[in-house]
């Protein structure tokens, strides 16, 4: 008997919620970035879980795909954070307010 699907989903939800709260409450861009990664991986986990449940490899392929894209995205995101830091000497997202209405 394998582990019920609901276990995976609950874990994934918890991870996603932690990530969301991190994104919403933290001011440091790096922490927010880590939280986003947490959310991504929570979703990856659900993809793999559903893939197993349906006996199909599609979900796992998509998970790999999303990991690759996430890796690329991290590169871009970190580069943006570095250049923002160079400009305003801070990684606090509240200080980057040039587009406030």
């Amino acid at each position, binding site marked *: 008997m394998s582990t019920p699907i609901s276990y995976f989903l609950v874990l994934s939800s918890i991870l996603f919620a932690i990530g969301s709260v991190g994104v919403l409450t933290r001011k440091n861009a790096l922490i927010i970035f880590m939280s986003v990664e947490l959310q991504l991986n929570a979703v990856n986990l659900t993809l793999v879980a559903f893939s197993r449940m349906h006996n199909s490899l599609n979900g796992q392929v998509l998970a790999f795909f999303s990991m690759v894209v996430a890796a690329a995205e991290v590169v871009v995101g970190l580069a943006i954070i570095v250049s923002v830091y160079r400009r305003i000497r801070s990684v606090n997202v509240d200080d980057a307010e040039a*587009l406030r209405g």
Partner: protein
Amino acid sequence: MSASGSLWLIPALPLVGAGVNLFIGKRLGRSAGIFAAVLVAASFAVSVAVAGSLVGLSAQDRVQTQELFEWIRVGAFSVGATLRLDPLSATMILVVTGIGTLIHIYSIGYMRDDPRYGRFFAYMNLFVFFMLMLVLGQNLLVLYLGWEGVGLCSYLLIGFWFEKTENANAAKKAFVTTRIGDTAMLIGLALIAVKFGTLDYTVIFGAAGSTLTKSAATAIALLLFAGAVGKSAQVPLHVWLPDAMAGPTPVSALIHAATMVTAGVFMVCRLSPMFETSATAMHVVTYVGAATCIFAATVGCAQNDIKRVIAYSTCSQLGYMFFAAGVGAYGAAMFHLFTHAFFKALLFLGAGSVIHAMHHEQDMRYYGALRKEIPITFWVMVAGTLAITGVGVEGVGFAGFWSKDAILESAWASGSVPGVIAFWLGALAALLTSFYSWRLIFLTFFGEPRWAASEHIQHAVHHVHESPDEEHGDSAHEPGLPPSGSGGYHPHESPLNMLVPIGLLAVGAVLAGQLFHNVFVDAERAAEFWRQSIAFSQHLAHAAHESALWVKLTPTIVMLIGLYIAWRNYIQKPEAAANFVAQFPAVYRFVSNKWYFDELYDFLFVRPSLWLGRLFWKGGDEGTIDRFGPHGAAYAVGIGNRITARFQSGYLYSYALVMLLGLIGAASWAIWWAR
């Protein structure tokens, strides 16, 4: 070459001049004026040639036409750009180009120092062109083209010195006032086009009696006459003419003598077969003419600006022409138009010469004793005054004597009620004409010099502009003459190229009546002359010729009375005029304020239109269209902006929260509702 072959050259030459001067007038410099004058002179030469060849033809062949091209064709309705040469238009082109040439030559000297020299002559040439189109047209649309064209040119020339607001306003007033008449005239044209199916004179004249009902004929004639009232400055649309003095003096001469104001008289004569079909319209023409005649003469008596006196005299003389036409004496009307062109151009150019000599002072109260200073101008002005007041005895006389007598005799001889009323009003106006014309001469050329008090003269003598004297501003309420004294100023006679045209006009003013009265008004010869061009009444001409002796003597007697009153008040007892004014201040105020026509129109039309305009502007445009249209849309966008801008807090977490909520919402929708 037939008479009509070179007809197109007559308007074409001034048009070429206008075009050339308009585009390269600046580069031509001083020669622009000579170029313009030469072209008008050439046009005059062609006019003389074609008129001469017309005289050689037998009476029935004296209507020559030349179709240049088909102008408009709409279904069966067709209008050609066709010129017509007959005795009437031949007379007019000779007057327009002849007087026009002299005025152009005069302008070369008068406008010498103007910075917009080339443009001035371009406008003058254009004016002559449009007037020639007006008189040469073979149909009403060509006439209307010229009609509107002279309106445009008068606007451009009256406002030629547009730097001063009152000049620009005078130009606008002239344009708008004449437009009122033009609009009525356009409706009249449309009615004619509907009733006759054409605008061609020959067809209209042939069918005028048979095609129209009485009421239709009256309506058309009155609508067309309304156009003439505007253009020829008759009551109640006369208000623009005195203000038109704002333009340069040669322009006033051109407007008053050769072009523009004569257009109305010409049009009534041209369409005389049409007017003859409606007795009511003829009565209206007579009454309007007689009313203007007497009204303008009274106002002329109380003006102090030399050009305004002459302007009102034009108004009054045009009244004569109209009531002559109104009683059916078209020959007499045209005759007066012809002689008037000479002496009115003469008076205006003479006045220009006086103004030139007096350093742009136009107020006669600051003149005086100029007789010895500018003797040539003095003598030609006297010639003009003798002509306008109608000095002469049976058989010998100055130009105005012949034509004014012909008009008054015709009015009396017509025997109708309006005719007799017009006769008495005309006789009274002749008295006033004599009075104000001699008053002008006496104030300007006789008595003591009163130049010292004039600001213009002071300016000329000291070459500095002294602080403006308060008394000058409202001196209109102070009718007494300013103190004597020459102020050390020496008037100078005008240059030769200004004096020669005036001299030639003086010859015309003296002889025009004597030489041409047979052609224009004699019962036998004029009937022959005018055949096929105007509805000349041989019967009326006979009756006028045989009118009672006292009728013939009336103009001379009233002329002498007017002369005596002027002499007594301005030569014998110079203080008498002021005493009269002091005794009857109300009369003086009424007359010198032009019967309060301007104030009345201001109250009746100008203010309500301004009010209406403001209502539409503030209430309609700004309050409704702008408010709910562009401004409203912009305002709504602004409001929307401010609301949505609140979402752009600049805090990353709030964006993230919105994204998250949106994601949850979308996911929930997908799970529960979208199946």
